């Protein structure tokens, strides 16, 4: 863990989240990962809710804990080291929260926080794996009187099957761009699919949703959905990177422990220079990622000039690195790395899924160029 844990609160949070992850998440990892073929880990989710993990960055005046991005990244890293499905659920909720805050919807958030008795009440589902402006089918919103109604489909609404509310991107009838809508997922005019079987984050289920003239409220202003998304993008990319970094730590630790124990060719695996090289590469990736993450958190927290582009660049690096590291994390363990009895194969899948958060990976890079390199906005790049 590279973060400079230089304040007491952060250290405490680190300990609490790590203990929670090791005691509550790790033992059930294989079982929870069976979802949707096994039960959903509602109990664990409620425990995380009770520990205020979902409130972590919600401002105090809205009923939250009011921590910053650094604290959030510490918690996310610890959780994802053991089981990133919970990380995915948290991520989705926090993305919704971030968008709502950008759209000046503090009151709505405050209300939800005040009303919530359990995790499901509090969770706000959204299409966390997509940038809605990247060509995905969106429902159409039509204004009728003072309210809106949604008609049409949207794919892959993360936590849509378990959350009470959702933030749905939709196009307003005969207008361009997209807007966000608040909708109660328990209403009758919404058809939800079974949980979509996915590559990773199995216990962070998504559903496809069909709206049949379902009631919804506009979030912020019409047609400003993309703007809200873009504003939420940078901090949330960093959160995704923190998840990836936690996954990497888990993968490295398990690979190292195995190589210290397993013998082939008459030696411990760790004694073969080939394996030393592989473990060293894993460790280098991990160190670099943790360092980048720590520095990126600092840059954001201190509002440094050019922080946004630097943070995004760091996140791209970490997210790619995680897919490579987790692949080698399996490789270091040979056949057993491929089996569900160990954590490596899940981390490999989860890293792939986390990389896809917030949109198509190469498109994120194209936008990075357009937004920071080509636009004249001062970046850290020479």
């Amino acid at each position, binding site marked *: 863990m590279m973060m400079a844990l230089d304040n007491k609160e952060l250290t405490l949070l680190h300990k609490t989240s790590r203990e929670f992850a090791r005691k509550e998440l790790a033992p059930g990892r294989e079982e929870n990962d069976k979802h949707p*073929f096994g039960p959903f880990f509602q109990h664990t989710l409620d425990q995380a809710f009770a520990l205020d993990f979902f409130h972590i960055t919600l401002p105090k005046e809205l009923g939250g804990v009011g921590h910053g991005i650094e604290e959030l990244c510490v918690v996310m890293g610890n959780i994802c080291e053991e089981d990133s499905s919970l990380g995915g659920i948290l991520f989705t909720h926090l993305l919704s929260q971030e968008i709502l805050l950008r759209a000046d919807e503090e009151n709505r958030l405050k209300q939800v926080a005040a009303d919530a008795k359990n995790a499901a009440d509090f969770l706000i589902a959204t*299409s966390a*794996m*997509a940038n809605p402006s*990247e*060509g*995905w089918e969106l429902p159409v919103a039509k204004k009728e009187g003072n309210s809106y109604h949604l008609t049409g489909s949207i*794919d*892959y609404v993360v936590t849509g099957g378990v959350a009470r509310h959702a933030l749905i991107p939709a196009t307003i009838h005969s207008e361009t761009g997209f807007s966000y809508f608040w909708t109660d997922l328990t209403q009758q005019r919404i058809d939800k699919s079974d949980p*979509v*079987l*996915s*590559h*990773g984050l199995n216990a962070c289920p998504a559903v496809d949703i069909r709206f049949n003239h379902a009631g919804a409220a506009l979030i912020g202003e019409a047609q400003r959905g993309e703007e809200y998304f873009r504003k939420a993008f940078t901090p949330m990319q960093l959160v995704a990177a923190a998840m990836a970094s936690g996954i990497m730590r888990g993968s490295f630790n398990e690979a190292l422990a195995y190589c210290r124990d397993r*013998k*082939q*060719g*008459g030696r411990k695996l760790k004694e*073969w*220079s*080939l394996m030393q090289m*592989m473990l060293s590469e894993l460790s280098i990736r991990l160190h670099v990622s943790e360092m980048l993450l720590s520095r990126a958190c600092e840059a954001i927290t201190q509002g440094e000039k050019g922080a946004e582009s630097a943070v995004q660049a760091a996140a791209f690096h970490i997210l790619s690195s995680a*897919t490579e590291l987790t*692949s080698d994390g*399996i*490789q270091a363990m*040979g*056949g057993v*790395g*491929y*089996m*569900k*009895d160990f954590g490596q*194969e899940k981390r*490999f*899948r989860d890293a*792939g*899924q986390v*990389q*896809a958060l917030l*949109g*198509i*990976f*190469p*498109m994120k890079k*194209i936008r990075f160029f357009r937004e920071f390199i080509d636009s004249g906005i001062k970046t850290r790049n020479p």
Partner: protein
Amino acid sequence: MISRREERMLREREPKFEDTLLSLIATGRQPKGIIREARKIIAIARKFNDEVARPASLVIDRKGLEDHRYLPWEYVKKANEYKLYTLFLPKMFGGQGYSPACSCYFMEELAATCLGMSNIVGAHYLGLTILLSTWNMKIAARICREVVEGEKSGSPCILTLAMTEPNAGTDSQNVEFMDKGGLGCHARRVDGGYVINGNKIFITMGHVSTWHIVQAYTALDKASETMVTFAVKTGQKGFSFGKQEKKMGQKGSVASELIFDECFIPDDQVCLDTEQAASLRRNIKETNEQLFAYIWSASRAGVGALGVGAARGAFETALDFASNHTIDGERMINHGWCQSMLAEMYKNVAAGRSLYSEANFANGMYGLLKLMNFKSIYYTNRFIPKAILLKLFSWICEKKAATWLFRLIYLDFQEDAEIDRVDGWGSMAKFAGSDAGAANCRMALELMGQAGVRHDRRAEKMMRDAKLLQIYEGTNQINRLNLFKRLVARSYEDVHTFSSSTR
């Protein structure tokens, strides 16, 4: 200008002509008929894909994810109905007699649609490969006959290869490591046969196969010199199945534990042991190393082809997505970055295919397929009616002389340089093809965003499936070492590979 001696000397300098330009050397040597067969084989695979594999692939995968104990019986039978288990069996064994040189192209096709299902067929041919590599013609003929009968009767008879053990994965596959203490499958010589005790793990298709080609050792601390290769039949006393592994992917095939508990195997199921090997030119350890080289050179070229299939499947899936998905008002396929990414994927397929083809040519000239690629034998197999060949060959195989002759040709006559060549190329094809598969699957996932991670869009399944190719048949790391051993190290003195002197 240049004398013959000089030419030879220069040609034999590293990298040696014979080691590098295999397809060129094969031109003219290889029967032309193979090209026509390859075309037909690809069509057969595509028909199976259209009618069976594609509609079933996600269904099987889902079933396997839901319950790791799922056994793909239905599809084992389907492949039998489509006569896939006898495609590459020579007619003299009662098979359909398609050139085994085409099997890689066939595997690529199957894998491009469903890697899991391709293994139903692939593991069977892997078992046949090890069986044939022992050149015990009597046992080979008997088992092949059963495979053919299984096809006729509708009860599939397929094979596995069983080497890996709980404490010996890499160690079970390399003679240099076999004596280091990890192996535990013991064979005890008794009157009329051997008694086996121990476990094998990760055996692809174990639970649904009839014959298992198993290696056990009469002295575990000298396994490299006491290895015995057995043909064990499902149902034999003392032999049972243990757990089914909870794999990440390739759900169309099962990975099984095989348990041997005082399992008596009679002499007529001993494919190769020290007694049989005593008369061979090489000592027993060298012979065992040669046996591994035969197996791996053929099967790793096959895994390379599976990797290329995976790479192709990922490419096709990504291409389909890109041509239907619009971003910034334009189909993705019209974005330069996307075209470049797809081109990279296409290149990975083509490069991987070139490598496994080269390995295939090496096998055709110097390895397992050598005899079948001799024009006279090839055309005999093709044009003489199966019934005649089968009758004649069944009779010949019963004779000890048949085994002696084949071992003479394949084991004694094979030169060390040829072993290096086929084994080195097998490793190269394997790690290059499987790395290409994994790389393309990753690119497909990246390119498809949230569609890529959905099971129903196939790319994520391909990624899970492809990852395994980097592990089995020797990890890619070990295959890199093997390439070095076979094609590089020999030019330098005092270079240690796969030994305790290697750090």
